[in-house]
Every structure is written in C-alpha cells, then in structure tokens.
C-alpha cells in the first residue's frame, strides 16, 4: 500500500513534506485481545471438546493507523469500540497481541534499554478522570516533579522546573503545595496536563480528556491544548466520543467501529463527504446548536458484543445497505480519494459500475 497523498487543501497540518518523512507513530495490523489464558488441563479439555474455550474480547482487529509529526488525529467511536485500547497501545502502555507498533520507524518491541526508555517518555497519556489519575496523597508539586526527577531531567532548581510546567498548563504555581482534592475538575485537568508535559514528550494521547468537564471549562482546556501544540511542537492522538470536540481540534479523523478503523480522512473531508455508512449515520447525529424543534432520528440497534463480533463487516447488522458479501467478507480499507480511506464493499460496487 502506498502512503496516502495528503496534499489536499483540507489537510491543515503544519506545512511539512509529510509524505516523505517517517511518521512519528505507525500501527501495522495491530490486534489486541483480552481474555484469560487457559492452563494445560483446561486446554486439554477444550481440545477434547469437554469444555468451551474461555471468552475472548476482540478489542482491536487488524488496525492500521499512521500519525505524522505535528498533526492532531481525532479518534472517534462509540463506547466499547476499542478506541481507548488503541490509545493505550499508541501511548506504549499496553502491548498489542499481534502486529507492529513503529515509533519513529522502529518497532517498539525491539527497542531496549535507554532507547526504550526514551521512546516511553516521548509518548505520554492524559486520562479521562483526572481525580483517578492523580495520587490523592501527593501534593501537586510532587505529582508533577516525580517523573522528571526519576529520569534525571531536572538540572538545577526543582521548584523552578515544576513552576515552569504548571504555568504552561495554566495552573497557578502558588497553589502547588495543595492536594488534588482541593481543586476543581478543570484545575485537576491542568495538573494532569502539566504532569504529562513535565517529561518533555513529543506525543500526547488524550483519552476523553475533556469529556468530564463543563462546557466553559472544556473550552479553556481545548484552547490550552491548541496553544501547547504550537508552543511545544506536540503531536496528538485525540480520543473522544464527542464529535464536536474532534471536529474542532483535529486535522485528520479516524472512525472506529467494533475494533476496526472503518474510515479515515482529513477533518473537513470526513464531515463534508462521509463515505462509510456508519460514519454517515454517526455524523448525522452530531448535536448542533440550531434553534427550532426537530425530530430526532436514530440509528437502530447497539454496538454488538466484542466477545462475539459479527462475521464479515462488523457493521452489517445495523447497516441499511447490507448485502450478501458484507455478511461473509470483511471489507479492506482502501483509499477512495486523496487522503481519504474507507472500508466498505459498496465502494467496489460503485467503482465497477
């Protein structure tokens, strides 16, 4: 497969010749399954047909994804579609069951020692619930300084180092001796951001980082993310179920459905010309502020269980255009326009016609 050409006017990423540069992060055919590993006795009884194999959650199923330096990739999907698992694998805190994760062109699995540590520090994650992510018994100062201190990143004044990052995250350093519970949700979100920034990462995975915040605070944090991107030259993977937020912040958008990326395109392209039937229905439901009563029409059904995903195209039980082929054969994601790829059998039909 060739690299998609992104020289479309819609690609608003900082002007670099991204098509030749090694991507910051590349996932190749990454799968992730969760389940218990049966012991010997269990394996024998399964082989003899005396027991059922243990349930396995297919969280990710053959995902290919490329994140270029300096861009913001939005990752959208319903709960349970595997977007958080993908975020964790991208951040390097969860290994894939199968497939390769290339960090700056090198397979993460083969990295050892200092280079491994370097790669781990360069990718950081900002979690959804800031209260759960912060140790309630550590002061803000300790929380932010712990990691850089262990990794020997502070040369000189520790307090000045912490203050610097707190200020970057818009947090008043005068309050750094307090504990997390003394702050509001928005302030805690800022501490989380400061902590992630303190180890000088290049790449941030934001997993629903603004979902728990009030609208006005959410706007402040989104603005902060955009400022930091410019100031520190950061790359983001922005995982969210909120289409409005993703539309606002992303350069490119990847849509996930039950463990697979079904569509990927520059943000303007995907909102203007959604190709996959799932994307079309999902985007039809973006709540927008438009005065005037309307009737809400909904996509039928719910996300099937990842314990037993449907055969063929995962979306076929809910798809209005389902035909025989969808039930047996999983569609491959193909480029349908420059920089725009989609995994749907209908594209073959229209191409042949």
């Amino acid at each position: 497969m060739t690299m998609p050409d992104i020289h479309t006017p819609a690609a608003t990423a900082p002007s670099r010749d991204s098509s030749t540069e090694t991507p910051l992060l590349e996932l190749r055919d990454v799968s992730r399954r969760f389940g218990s590993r049966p012991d010997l006795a269990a394996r024998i009884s399964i082989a003899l047909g005396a027991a059922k194999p243990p349930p396995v959650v297919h969280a990710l199923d053959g995902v290919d994804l490329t994140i270029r330096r300096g861009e913001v990739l939005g990752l959208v999907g319903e709960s349970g579609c595997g977007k958080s698992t993908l975020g964790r694998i991208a951040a390097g805190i969860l290994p894939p069951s199968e497939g390769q994760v290339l960090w700056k062109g090198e397979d993460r699995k083969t990295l050892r020692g200092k280079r491994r540590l370097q790669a781990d520090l360069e990718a950081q994650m900002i979690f959804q619930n800031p209260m759960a992510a912060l140790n309630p018994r550590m002061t803000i100062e300790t929380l932010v300084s712990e990691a850089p201190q262990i990794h020997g990143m502070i040369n000189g004044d520790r307090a000045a180092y912490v203050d610097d990052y707190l200020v970057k995250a818009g947090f008043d350093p005068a309050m750094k001796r307090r504990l997390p519970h003394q702050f509001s949700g928005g302030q805690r979100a800022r501490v989380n951001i400061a902590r992630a920034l303190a180890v000088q990462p290049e790449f941030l995975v934001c997993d629903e980082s603004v979902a728990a915040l009030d609208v006005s605070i959410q706007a402040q944090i989104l603005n902060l993310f955009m400022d930091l991107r410019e100031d520190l030259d950061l790359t983001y993977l922005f995982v969210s179920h909120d289409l409005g937020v993703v539309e606002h912040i992303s350069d490119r958008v990847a849509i996930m459905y039950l463990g697979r990326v079904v569509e990927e395109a520059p943000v303007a392209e995907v909102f203007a010309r959604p190709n996959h039937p799932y994307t079309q229905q999902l985007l039809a439901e973006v709540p927008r502020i438009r005065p005037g009563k309307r009737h809400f029409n909904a996509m039928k059904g719910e996300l099937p269980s990842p314990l037993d995903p449907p055969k063929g195209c995962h979306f076929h039980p809910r798809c209005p255009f389902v035909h025989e082929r969808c039930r047996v054969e999983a569609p491959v994601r193909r480029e349908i326009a420059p920089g725009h790829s989609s995994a749907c059998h209908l594209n073959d039909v229209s191409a042949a016609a």
Partner: protein
Amino acid sequence: MTPLLDVRDLVTTFPGRGRALRAVDEVSFQLGRGEVLGLVGESGSGKSVTGFSIMGLVDAPGRVASGQILFDGEDLAQLDAETRRSLRGRRIAMVFQDPMMTLNPVLRIGTQMTETLHAHEKLSAAEARARARDALGLVGIPSPQERLDAYPHEFSGGMRQRVAIAIALLHRPDLIIADEPTTALDVTIQAQIISEFQKLTEEQGTSVIWITHDLAIVSGLADRIAVMYGGRIVEAGTITEVLTAPRHPYTRGLIRSVPSENTRGTRLAQIPGVTPGLGRMPEGCAFRTRCPRATEVCSERPGRFGDAMAYHRCFHPHEEALA
C-alpha cells in the same frame, strides 16, 4: 389558560457556615401543557436542585425556604408529605441521569414496574404485568414479555435508561422532569432515547423539563429555555430568541464555548475563570467577576427584566444578535 406549572421565586437553601446557602435563588418560570422547557446550566448552577425541589425530593438539611410551586393551580410547597407522595410517579415523574441508580439491582424489571403501578392504582397482578409489558414495548425494548423477568444488570446502559423512561411514563404523568437522562450515553444511543422520549411525550401531551448542560440537544428538543448560573435563572425565553440573540453575557459565552464546525482550527471563545462555590458567590450579579461587561452597578442584585415568559437578569444586556 393557566400554565401546568408556575414556579414563583423558588428558593432552596442548604445550611452553610453560619448562613443558609441558596442553591436555588428566586427561580421563576412557567410551563404550559405539552410544552418542553430546557433547563440549562453547568455543574453547581442549581438546575438539578430546582428539579428536586419541584419533585419534593430535597433531602434535609436542605429545604425549600420560600416561593411557590403552583402545579395545576395547587401550591406543592404547601402540601403535606403524604399528598406529595401520591402525586410523585403518578402526575409528576422524574428520569435521572444514572439508570443504574434508579433501578434496584436485586429486583427484576417487571417487579419494579408493577410495584410502581400498584402504588397508585388498584389493579390485578396480571393487569399490572400486561401494562408493564406494553410500556416496555413502547420504549423500544425487544421481546418485552421475556425482559420483564430480567435484572437491571442484564441490560445495556441505553436499555436501562429506556426502562427508567418506561417506568416514568407508566401513569401517563402530566409532567416529566428529565435530569440529564442521556449524558452517560453514546451519541447514537442518545439519539435513540431522545427520539423515543420525544415521540411518547408528544403523543401523551406530557410537559417536560429537560435538565441538561448540552445546548445542542435543547436547541432541537425544547420550546423554551432557561439558563441558570449560580442558582438563578439568568435568562429565559423561547429557544429561537435565546439562542439567536442571547441577552445575558453568560448565555452568550456558553454558546460560544461549544466547539462546532465553525470553530475548526480556531481558538474557542472562553469564559475566564471558574464558577465560584455557593459560599463564595459574589454579591449582586453572580456572574460579574467573570463578566467582560461588568461595571459598578453589577454589585447590586439584578432583578428580572422582561415578563414571566421571557426575561434576563443583566444590567448590561446584549442587544445585537449572535454573529
């Protein structure tokens, strides 16, 4: 015609350090039959406590301190506990944010539904079961007969919320107070629930107070909107009036902080600062410390400018439409 619900200067207080804190502060609004009111605000604005006050569910030491809640001409605030209980679930029902908290985890769905029916009506067990089954079918639960015997944990989040809505609609109430009923759900499930809810309440002519922080949902669902800040309704009016030409700087700031297709790649307009805690609300206009238009006069408490149906509480209201 008198409105179904007429709330006048409602004040609900909770004891604070040495003084009563007003979680709901002189809230007034009217709701006609079959009308949908969106009650919008951020956390701590008092929107849920307003809902609880109307339901009579404010737990001690909190209490409705003053004001009237005229429901069908009768002041709920003056009724005894027993009369209020007989109204709850029958004429006024509530749907909560977290359906797992609404439903009893150790009782079958059918039991919880028939219990609600028996509480207000004399009917046989078989009749109650048939009613419960029909109600489940109405909210789009497949094979309702079998699902009556299921426990709440056997349902997905969206299905649980459907059950909660089915229970709320069992007695065909005149008024439903929906407190962030779709906040915990995915966009697709949210759209499903709203569409079912909308269909049913329209058919039954139910009035709805939809409490939410989500302006986008309210804009397509409600007839009228009331925006709350610091326990007060700072602006109220029809959806079109308030969303196209918001008068209060807070309403304007809130609308402009919502990310959308128009804000792509730009900075969002943000409201500076955070909502102060109830104990630290500034005197006068509660929003003045975050407001770009505030002047000296704002340290006095702004009254209601306008009439009962459309008003704002601002000394320096915006006149122009939102760009």
